[in-house]
């Protein structure tokens, strides 16, 4: 409770009501305190709603099976049971699943970044016929459901021998992360003055090396954002993986975890523990680069 008053006070200081008539100041301050208190309540309620499902995953992972089946799960996590959670996780092939997820995710990242910087460079640096339609086509991928593409891609992968193949999944997944990566990188390149490459070109430096030697190092933070986005597009992807990888040895964690739904053999604590291990890297990295990803998605829509 002490911290709550501190927050309110510091907000009050941040927005002083200078210039208000002395008579009005008293009621004004009372009103603004009320306003700040209500804002504080809103923040607390929303934090509760936003954080609860993740908290409950943690809490369930650390609960005993007896209380889970009896419906008497404690409201607080038993942190002392962390050791038995790792024992539980040994009952599912979680680490192999995560290895497959990581392979797919890294492949998706490399493919999206390489092709995304080429396309982003063209869209940022040149005026050419077909530029508008290309930007529009890339934006349209936001409208296309994966489910719509699933069957024709499946048929295509049969003929190319790409079923049950993690490389095939990389090819499929990057189709949806490449456009967003392109927009993130294009937005970053737009902010770099053209003179930088022009001077390099006078020195006889070809355009492709202007891109790789000069532009890309400058936009490293945006590359990181595009990398995170692409990585977790591959890491999270479920529908393609569930359809294209029938061999359980190739399953990524998304498919493995989904297979727990509706079966009763695996203890819920092991399921939620696995889901949490699968989720935590995504939360950490997304929070680091969220702003640049938001910028990429919105620019794609505005200027596509």
């Amino acid at each position, binding site marked *: 409770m002490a911290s709550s008053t501190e927050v309110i006070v510091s907000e009050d200081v941040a927005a002083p009501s200078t210039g208000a008539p002395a008579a009005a100041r008293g009621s004004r301050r009372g009103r603004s305190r009320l306003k700040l208190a209500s804002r504080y309540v809103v923040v607390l309620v929303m934090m509760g709603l936003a954080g609860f499902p993740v908290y409950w995953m943690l809490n369930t992972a650390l609960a005993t099976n007896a209380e889970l089946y009896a419906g008497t799960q404690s409201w607080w996590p038993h942190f002392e049971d962390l050791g038995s959670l790792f024992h539980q996780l040994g009952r599912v092939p979680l680490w192999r699943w995560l290895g497959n997820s990581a392979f797919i995710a890294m492949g998706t990242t490399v493919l999206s970044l390489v092709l995304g910087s080429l396309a982003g460079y063209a869209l940022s640096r040149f005026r050419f016929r077909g530029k508008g339609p290309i930007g529009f086509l890339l934006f349209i991928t936001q409208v296309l459901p994966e489910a719509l593409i699933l069957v024709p891609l499946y048929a295509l992968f049969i003929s190319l021998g790409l079923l049950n193949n993690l490389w095939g999944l990389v090819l499929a997944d990057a189709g949806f992360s490449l456009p967003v990566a392109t927009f993130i990188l294009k937005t970053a390149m737009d902010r770099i003055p053209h003179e930088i490459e022009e001077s390099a070109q006078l020195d006889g430096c070809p355009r492709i090396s202007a891109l790789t030697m000069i532009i890309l190092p400058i936009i490293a933070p945006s590359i990181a954002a595009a990398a995170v986005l692409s990585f977790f597009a591959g890491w999270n992807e479920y529908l393609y993986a569930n359809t294209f990888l029938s061999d359980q040895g190739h399953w990524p964690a998304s498919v493995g975890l989904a297979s727990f*739904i509706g079966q009763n053999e695996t203890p819920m604590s092991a399921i939620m523990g696995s889901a949490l291990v699968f989720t935590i890297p995504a939360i950490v990295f997304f929070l680091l680069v969220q702003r640049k990803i938001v910028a990429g998605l919105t620019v794609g829509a505005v200027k596509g």
Partner: protein
Amino acid sequence: MSHALATGAASTRRRRIARFSAPYLFVAVPLVYMTVVVFYPAAREVWLSFTNTKLSRPNGGHFVGTDNYARIFGSDLLWTSLLTTVLYVLGVVAGCLVLGTLAALAVDRPFRGRALVRGVLAFGWAVPGVATALAWSWIFNSQTGVLNRITGALGLGTHDWLSNQELALPSVIAATVWQYTPFVMLVVLAALQSVPPEVREASHVDGADALSRFRAVTLPHILPAIRLVALLLVVWSMRLFEIIYLLTGGGPLNRTSTLVVSLELQAFENYDLGGAATYGVVGLVISLAVTVVYFVVERRSTHGV
């Protein structure tokens, strides 16, 4: 002399060709790749909706004209599915816009611990869809779920959240809103932070109350961002699959079967790829129509009428 001129002209021409072709060289590989894995399959799916292709022979269907459309439009499932999609999209868009804007306004001004608060509020967006579905299916569990413990303690009774015909769709909407609200918050927050401080201060001095100040000053500034995020929410929730599919499988009695879920069920439970594609095309046409309307409205408002 003339020799030197000729090579000069040739090299200018070569340079001009190089300059003309350079952008195409850069976009060629990305574009070919996107065509193979996205645009060609999408076009092929549209074609499938005019054939009688079955799952057993995905490459061997015959052209049947608009038979699939006649059949699908004559079935109740399409109309249930359309209604479900509309309710789902409206629920998700309304819920996300209200909660996301509220969250953005709440964390707009600096206060101690804001970074932590903003991080927690953004959780849903970062959590993978499959993990979201697992977490919510456990929360909604009718026997041992925490939601029934809470509603039971509050005297609201216990419910089969995911298998009750009235509650399944709102439950699925709630899980989706949880996942997409953070994105709205982040976009609106970015827009709020770009409102010039003078504008806000001027309105403070006027002494207008918070709500009318929000409507008169802040809202016009963030409205373009809200319109854009509304468009993205519509097209994303039209295509969202795994949360619905994993929570309810489209049930009970198709009450949560949006067009995308119906597509999947038609293809992999009825083995009817032609009919499945028809659901996909219907959804795609709606999404494209919404997108076109958005761009027309946006162009008109930026260029003046």
